[in-house]
């Protein structure tokens, strides 16, 4: 069993070594590239050389996959919500609209989209002590085709963003979105992370923001009641809902 002394910044003998110091053993160890202020270091690309398929024609016929990490969300993308219901009814609000809105308001079925900690408070809001069932929101549908409201509860990571957008697009109109928790409102405590989306309003139109980390169940219920008011106020009108933060630049 060989024991070698390693160059270790955490070894007890050294005081406060700086990261990126030259190696103290005889080998030429290059200092790692530290980014200058304002620049970003190049990513390290390690090609996959561990294993190769026996049949090179399998899986795409050997083409290099063009899977892009959220390419569809890059520049050049339409900021408005495309899946809109348009009809003649939106011009003149009638009693039918009012009644329809009343019906929708009192039976908003949420989609089970609990991602992280806020999901616990969403479940707590749905169960006995703070009951959302009295507002008609009891059935948390598992399928997006049957749901009205997408309550995004929990941190949205870049890997989950794709499935979440798919869920949003699979929900039939009329649909609303509630951003629950700080992570979905603006990124929250993960503002500096490399793997989270800084607020879901970068991806989908949000109707109600419920801040908190996590918001109390009463807070979520208040948000849902606000959503109900919002639906009643629209009276069949579907406004142009923009995707993305609507605060003007510089504010």
């Amino acid at each position, binding site marked *: 069993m060989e024991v070698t002394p390693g160059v270790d*910044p*955490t070894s*007890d003998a*050294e005081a*406060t*070594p700086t990261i990126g110091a030259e190696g103290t053993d005889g080998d030429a160890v290059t200092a790692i590239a530290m980014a200058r202020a304002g620049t970003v270091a190049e990513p390290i690309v390690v090609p996959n050389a*561990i*294993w*190769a*398929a026996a049949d090179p024609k*399998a*899986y*795409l016929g*050997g083409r290099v*996959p063009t*899977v*892009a*990490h959220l*390419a*569809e*969300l*890059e*520049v*050049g*993308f*339409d900021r408005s919500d*495309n*899946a809109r219901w348009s009809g003649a009814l939106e011009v003149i609000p009638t009693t039918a609209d009012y009644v329809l809105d009343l019906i929708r308001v009192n039976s908003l079925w949420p989609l*089970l*989209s609990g991602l*992280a*900690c806020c*999901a*616990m*408070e969403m*479940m*707590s809001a749905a*169960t*006995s*002590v703070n009951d959302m069932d009295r507002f008609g929101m009891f059935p*948390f549908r*598992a399928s997006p085709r049957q749901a009205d409201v997408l309550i995004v509860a*929990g941190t949205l*990571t870049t*890997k*989950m963003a*794709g*499935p*979440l957008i798919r869920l949003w*697009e*699979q929900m039939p109109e009329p649909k609303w979105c509630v951003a629950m928790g700080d992570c979905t409102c603006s990124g929250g*405590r*993960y503002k*500096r*992370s*490399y*793997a*989270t989306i800084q607020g879901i309003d970068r991806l989908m139109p949000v109707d109600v923001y419920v801040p908190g980390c*996590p918001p*109390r169940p009463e807070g979520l219920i208040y948000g849902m009641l606000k959503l109900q008011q919002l639906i009643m106020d629209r009276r069949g009108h579907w406004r142009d809902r923009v995707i993305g933060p609507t605060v003007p630049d510089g504010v």
Partner: protein
Amino acid sequence: MTTAPKTQVRSLDDPLLMVDTPATIYDAVPPYPPQTEREAEFYALRGGEMLINLGPQHPSTHGVLRVVLKIDGERVVDLDPVLGYLHRGVEKICENSDWHMVVSHCDPLEYIASMFSELVPVMAAEKLLDVKVPRRADYIRVLACELNRISSHALFIGWLALDLGGLTPILYGFIERDEIVEMLAALTGQKLLFNYMRIGGVNGDLNHEFLSRLGDWMSHAAARIEDSQTLINENEIFVKRTRGLGVIDRETALRMCLSGPPLRATGIPYDVRRAHPYSVYPELEFEIPTREEGDSYARYLLHLDEIKQSIHIIDQVLHKMPDGPIAAKLPRLLRPRPGRAFAAIESPRGQYAVYAMSDGSDQPFRLRIHDPSYFNLQTVGLLTPGHLVADTMAIMASLDPIMGGVDK
């Protein structure tokens, strides 16, 4: 970002859209050549087999876990869990923040048992700083942790029943849990992500509201547990669906790096509170419940046993609570000595450990968080093949994963 042709976004509801939707990473079969042997073996289908995607969004409430099942009829032949849908980069954020800030970064990892996920990095920092925690602070920590353990187990019971289709026990579980977290909210100010542990102690002392709620709760805690026991324990459907399901034997449990209730349900009495005592657990009397069978039913019963032990511990702590300060005085700018420290505790899911490396500066050099749910979840791939599709969730629920911890 990779260099890919920039595609225009089209809504999937657009009726004029008949494009070849580019294959994405969340299709059941990955659109790239298999990178490893195991991937090739898994995604190669024999006759009659099918790949089903138990997608990241599903009615089971553990969080965003995606499992690709290879099924033959109704039987699961193999399964491949895909993680990372909740990976928030906590370890990297911790490396860029202060030692004091680590507490609030680490508490959403095991979000229903935040006291534990906060306690461990604090213990590692205390080891690096050689801080002596006041005895009252230690007792308060144990009290808060055991209360959190009970609420976490109550939720486990609810979720296990929910995954098997029973909608009532989850309501009972949430009533229990709400009462306990209201109590902890009186103590810490928060219902879920408590931010209560500090390096050298805790954040606030016991106050009147907390103690009165605690007294009310203790008076009927045992009776409530008996209630939920009579609701589920002898229920024929529950027993039939969990007994004999997902049996692990001792050797396999050690090889799979299991810890916590799944390990103790196989008969190995490994509990970090007794094997590597920390805080004031050496002064408290409690047993380590174990079971022999190693199936899901045994894991469920073990959680009930643990709730009883936790109530016993809380009782002793309340009787023995000393007076004194609740936190050691530490400077705002903390520079631990360069070194390495490994601290582990017994969380409701198993051995929760942190390996902290310090280089003498005020930021952690490396904060490695070892979450038990991550390693426990590997066992799912071992236990499910051979069972039915519906048993997948039962097995997963009995291993009690929390995706916040699994994905960090």
